[in-house]
């Protein structure tokens, strides 16, 4: 289940500012392209992994912030704020084996990467760090790039949605 909270943003800001498009237009350079990376869906091979895996050394930005580059097409609670990280599910949840994909531009190297937005599943919503950036997201009848869908399909723990990962699956170019 994807959280839709531009509304909250609007509530917080004055209605008068609602025509500002800076935040959205600025991200258009990273227009999502769904690539053949559907075969690259990253599923945990190492469930024995314990600590949250941090972002990679050559990255920039704060993964607890909605502005972090990998989140260009995310829509949900950030697992980074829920006891996990951008690529690690919080304890007691299970990553979805299938998901939707986006493409985001890494400002540190100028490259585009295919990002896999696996859900972490089996617990009620985390409720922290709600982040909605729908760049390139499609309607639900085009599921591979649809972020309105609960992607907790095929898990052992059921479809309850807890939070969303943003996992680097490889360069997009």
């Amino acid at each position: 289940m994807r959280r839709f909270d531009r509304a909250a943003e609007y509530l917080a800001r004055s209605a008068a500012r609602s025509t500002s498009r800076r935040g959205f237009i600025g991200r258009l350079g990273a227009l999502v392209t769904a690539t053949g990376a559907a075969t690259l869906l990253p599923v945990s091979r190492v469930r024995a992994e314990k600590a949250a895996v941090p972002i990679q050394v050559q990255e920039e930005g704060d993964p607890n912030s909605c502005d972090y580059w990998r989140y260009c097409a995310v829509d949900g609670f950030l697992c980074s704020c829920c006891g996990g990280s951008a690529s690690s599910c919080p304890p007691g949840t299970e990553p979805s084996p299938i998901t939707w994909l986006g493409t985001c531009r890494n400002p540190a190297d100028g490259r585009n990467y295919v990002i896999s937005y696996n859900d972490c599943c089996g617990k009620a919503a985390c409720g922290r760090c709600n982040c909605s950036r729908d760049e390139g997201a499609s309607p639900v009848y085009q599921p591979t790039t649809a972020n309105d869908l609960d992607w907790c399909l095929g898990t052992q723990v059921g479809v309850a949605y807890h939070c969303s990962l943003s996992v680097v699956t490889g360069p997009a170019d």
Partner: protein
Amino acid sequence: MRSRRFKMLAKMLAGGFGVMALATTTACAAPRKAPPAPKVPVLAVEDVTTVELKDRIPPHWLVVNDVVFTHLLDGRAYIVDGDKGEYLGMVPGGHSHVGVQFTPDGSHLLMPGTFFARGSRGERTDVITWFALKDLMPGEEVVIPPKRIQSLPLLSSIPLTDDGRFVLIYNFTPEQSMTVVDAEAKSVVGEFETPGCALAHMTGPRSFMMQCADGSLQSGALDESGKITLGATTQPLFEREDPASDKPVRISASRWLFITFAGAVAEVDNASGTPTPGARWKLTGPGEDAWRPGGLQPYTFHAPSGLLYVLMHQGGPGTHKHPGTEIWVFSVASKQRVARLPIETPSTAIEISKDADPLLYTALFGSGTVVVRKPADASVLRKIEGLGNDISVLQAPPVVPAAGPAK
């Protein structure tokens, strides 16, 4: 009820509770002012009662769906009176609540729901429950395959046929299929594969259109037993760069308007059982390219006037869920905009009542408020506040022919 009351008291006295009740009667001799000489009669002893609503839903009542994102297993629908601005009651939903379906006679609400044996975990059970409008009590229930799509609410994922005979439930596992429920027999007819295509937009008592991943439309039909057969498919009608939203608008029994993220409109008629593309036009005119439809329920159609109401905002690609800051009104017949109405509160949902003298409703996700407006100029008639957490879609009921004991 009276007999039960004494039964409970007997139970209380039989258990340890009686001890406390006795203790209570003698305690608390707190000092208290002597009451002044009574000027008015003593208040009467009251009975506890339970409110009942009407037999059939009036056109100016509204169902307000709350998906409750942070507590997704407690979705619900509120019923409000648009004329009086009053809250009337609540119908419980379940995990990933979508909305209700009104029976054609306006007497019942069908509520698809998903439940788990242990809150958000354990065995999953999907059901359709019938709630009589009159008492809002859960009535009959049909257990369906636990596969219904879990997503942001889409009303075309749970349609009822126009005659109220069958419910169609769109499943996504990610295999795609449709469960058909016989609403008369209260039983599952079956599950039918719909590979590559999603949702069911009803186009007649037994026919519908689905939206497919390649941008085409697929027709489908139910036979008299409810069995689905898929029919003709169109060419892809939309580019992937600007897809039609999954929230099209029905403008007649067999015709729907599919509207893209950028505001291109395509009319499609399924009267023949083959989806037939009709007129194509745009919501925006010259110099208005910055404007787009947006929200969770971006458009609504008023059949008696032929007017389409659209929530519009300024934004680029990827802003298809952004709240509208203006309502643009179009004549579907002439494909012309007839009004452009700024609204004081950005809104993510818009709905209009289905009668000849309609009320226009808007809501902003997260606000808990429905704004009741005059359709002519979108001016605010009243607000209904305190409607939960996350209003997703609004549902105006069908106009029901006056019949039965209306109250």
